[in-house]
């Protein structure tokens, strides 16, 4: 079952340092093109560990539905 919450990255602020990658227990984050961090929605459990370590504070934990609304 998918979690209620999910992490989302503010791309315009992310410096692609990788601190969130290290912190994520699910290996749900990567920096695919080296420019920004990207969350794998299928793996993320919304625990917030990434958001608490990100030095620029650019990761928010939001409700999954909100994420889907944002994408549409």
């Amino acid at each position, binding site marked *: 079952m998918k979690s209620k919450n999910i992490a989302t990255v503010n791309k315009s*602020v992310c*410096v*692609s*340092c*990788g*601190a969130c*990658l*290290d912190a994520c*227990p*699910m*290996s749900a984050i*990567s*920096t*695919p*093109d*080296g*420019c920004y961090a990207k969350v794998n929605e299928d793996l993320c459990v919304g625990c917030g560990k990434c958001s*608490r*370590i*990100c*030095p*620029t*504070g650019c990761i928010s934990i939001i409700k999954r539905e909100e994420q889907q609304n944002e994408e549409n």
Partner: protein
Amino acid sequence: MKKTKKWYDYLWIWPIVYFSLGYFNILFAWLGMIDFIVPLIIAGCGGGKAFCNRYCGRGKLFAVIPKLFKKENKKVAPGWMYSNIFRYGFLIFFLTMFGSMVYQTYLVFAGSASLKTAVKLFWTFKVPWKRAYTVTSVPAWVTQFSYGFYSLMLTSTLIGLIVMALYRPRTWCTFCPMGTMTQGICKLKK
């Protein structure tokens, strides 16, 4: 599901080894070129930010120290610290200082300046480091570069440790010149 540790999770040991070696023999400072060249090669060859994300010992050290002392600062750095103006400004400043260090090396090579056996912290404070001048048979410019480069590495690590204590552990990474350069390369390639 717990993540298994990879060999590169232990790379925080590298900066400690590096600074210890340079404490006893300044010529080891040249090894720091690895941290300069490898990230650029990886980013240039399409490897993205793999250096920052996996292999950077310094980034790992800043994450490990607060964990060790169980004192992770939760405070996010002020916005200007990770703004593009500051990041690119700091990169230009850093490269200028690198250039000036190379010029100093050239002056010693050309014989118009004498070798200075001191480490300069924060581009200002001279710390006597003659004890580490143990191999005197190499050309003076090789040693001069070692002192200059070691100063640069030590200064940037000290800045990193200060912002690590004041803000979130890896705050240095928000304006680290290597991080800015590699992200810049990735953005350009896109």
